């Protein structure tokens, strides 16, 4: 009895506040825009019972989704989000892997400090970390002051409000998510495997590619998903660091909702975003499951 309660409470909470809301988003994505509060007319009326369901089936249309396909803004935003997420995930991996490797190979007594140093920014406000780059990257910012000061450039670089700034912001804020899963695998890597590879004729570098990289695969995959999936829907970074031509779907959704007050279209945008994310989310979960099984 008590055991059942233990399951039911969190289960119902998540059903009510996680799953049902998605159903509602889906429902509203099928409704029509109206000038009212809430600013839509429901096409599916639960109160009308069976008759309501029939009316719904009759009036069912995907006009909001059709609208998304007619306006190039939307699919361009989806594609551009995917591209930005992909490139920034690769950049994060390129920067994060050497750091994780360095941490795993540091003397034992350094490691707790190094881990703390990676986690510390993670506890610090995300907003503030993104904000800190605004002062650095702006035209009269610290980076331009520095570069002009040492004479590398004579005219300031325009970095803020470009995609470059968005990449920098993403790599910066998501780096701990890449480092930690890779580190946790590298740290447990049996050193005798590398010695065995060397003993069998590998150089240090080829032992790294043939042994270390394949064995840290699960960490790499986990890190990449932890960056890639949330970045697709990222809103704060493109809004603060990106320019008017930085198209990301999270930003489009926000503007559709708060600026245009078109809730049905915003919901349709969310539904498609969710559909895009379902595959990577399932893959991510499989990877986590596999790793847990491998550990136990």
């Amino acid at each position, binding site marked *: 009895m008590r055991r059942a309660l233990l399951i039911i409470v969190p289960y119902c909470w998540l059903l009510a506040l996680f799953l049902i809301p998605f159903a509602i988003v889906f429902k509203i994505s099928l409704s029509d825009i109206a000038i009212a509060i809430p600013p839509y007319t429901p096409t599916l009326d639960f109160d009308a019972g069976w008759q309501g369901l029939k009316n719904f089936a009759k009036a069912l249309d995907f006009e909001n989704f059709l609208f998304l396909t007619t306006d190039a803004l939307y699919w361009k935003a989806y594609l551009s989000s995917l591209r930005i997420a992909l490139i920034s995930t690769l950049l994060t991996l390129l920067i994060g892997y050497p750091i994780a490797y360095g941490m795993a190979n540091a003397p034992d007594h350094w490691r707790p400090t190094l881990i703390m140093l990676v986690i510390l920014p993670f506890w610090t406000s995300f907003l503030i970390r993104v904000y800190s780059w605004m002062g650095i990257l702006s035209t009269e910012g610290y980076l331009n002051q520095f570069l002009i000061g040492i004479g590398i450039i004579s005219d300031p670089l325009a970095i803020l409000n470009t995609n470059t700034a968005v990449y920098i912001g993403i790599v910066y804020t998501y780096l701990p998510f890449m480092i930690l899963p890779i580190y946790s695998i590298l740290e447990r890597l*049996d050193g*005798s495997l590398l*010695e*065995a*590879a*060397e*003993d*069998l004729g590998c*150089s240090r570098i080829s032992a790294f590619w043939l042994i270390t990289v394949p064995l840290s695969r699960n960490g790499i995959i986990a890190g990449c998903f932890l960056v890639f999936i949330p970045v697709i829907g990222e809103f704060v970074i493109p809004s603060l660091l990106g320019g008017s031509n930085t198209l990301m779907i999270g930003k489009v959704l926000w503007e559709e909702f708060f600026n245009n007050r078109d809730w049905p279209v915003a919901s349709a945008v969310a539904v498609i975003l969710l559909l895009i994310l379902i595959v990577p989310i399932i893959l991510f979960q499989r990877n986590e499951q596999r790793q847990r099984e491998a550990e136990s």
Partner: protein
Amino acid sequence: MSDLKFEPWNDPKAVPLISFRNVTKRFGDFIAIDNQTFDIFEHEFFALLGPSGCGKTTMMRMLAGFETPTEGKISLAGQDIAPIPPNKRAVNMMFQSYALFPHLTVWNNIAFGLKREGMAPDAIDARVAEMLKLTRMEKFASRKPHQISGGQKQRVALARSLAKAPKLLLLDEPLGALDAKLRQETQFELVDIQEKTGTTFIIVTHDQEEAMTVATRVAVMDHGQIIQADTPDRIYEMPNSVYVADFIGDVTIIKGRVSPSDDGYEIHHAEGLPPLFAKSNLSLKNGTGAYLAIRPEKISIAAEQPSSARNAIKGAIQDIAYLGNLSTYHVELPNGTIVKAQATNNRRLANRPFTWEDEVWLSWTDTAAVLLDH
């Protein structure tokens, strides 16, 4: 006669495969290897035996190339190996944990070193097949390491390290992870494989039985030094020190003062008890302290005083360890010393002559005990 025996270490003309010359290895203040000089010959099965921390693993890692000597020189086939990195040495190692690559199949684990050599694919196929056959692992070629048993892992690790036909194979506690029965079987298998391939093996172990079974020579180590390196029978029968006598097998050590007598010494070990006698080549001054080491199986146990034996001593049975095929009696002498004596149980339990508290006579021959000066 002596031509048939494999004893290159007794042949002054034999050229060693490996020679250590005044090799010292320090880690900070800790001396892992203390100024060692010795040789190992081709086709030997050489065992480094000692408790953990005695330096045996360091010795092996220096040969593999994972450590470099602080002082001294190690040469392999006459060539100084210090500048050669591990991946270029004609030495392979079988790791204690086996270190099988978990992401590769058995086949690919064995082929790993061959591929690094740039061997032709056909030749790799043939060589891997040969190794699988040697270790009887043909059926498991496509399994991953987590899909095979501990004994099978051990064989794969052996096949992998032998695949490159190294001049020297290092085995770090190769059987340590196996259970007792499997370990015994595998010991003989190792010897077979060593004879078939003709490779020189160096094995590191803390298990004296394992070292005695497989090795042509056993080196007993302690605190970074080889105390004695000799054939298993000589190590057992003629230990050069109390440490070796005590480390290998069961032994009773009796401490006393010596006085020369005939071609040996009498050992005065306790007030009121007759001295014991042992033949010995040692040259000791009258009255110096020395140790007498006696193996339990060399002592006879009897109810009556034996008439002929020069070493006969009376005591009471304090404990009996029944081991099935034989029993070890712990006999307490009048001065409190405990002497261990062994007797074969050639009769059924009920008919055995001695039990607790019985007064018995222990006796042994003049050559049975070994006199040691340290």
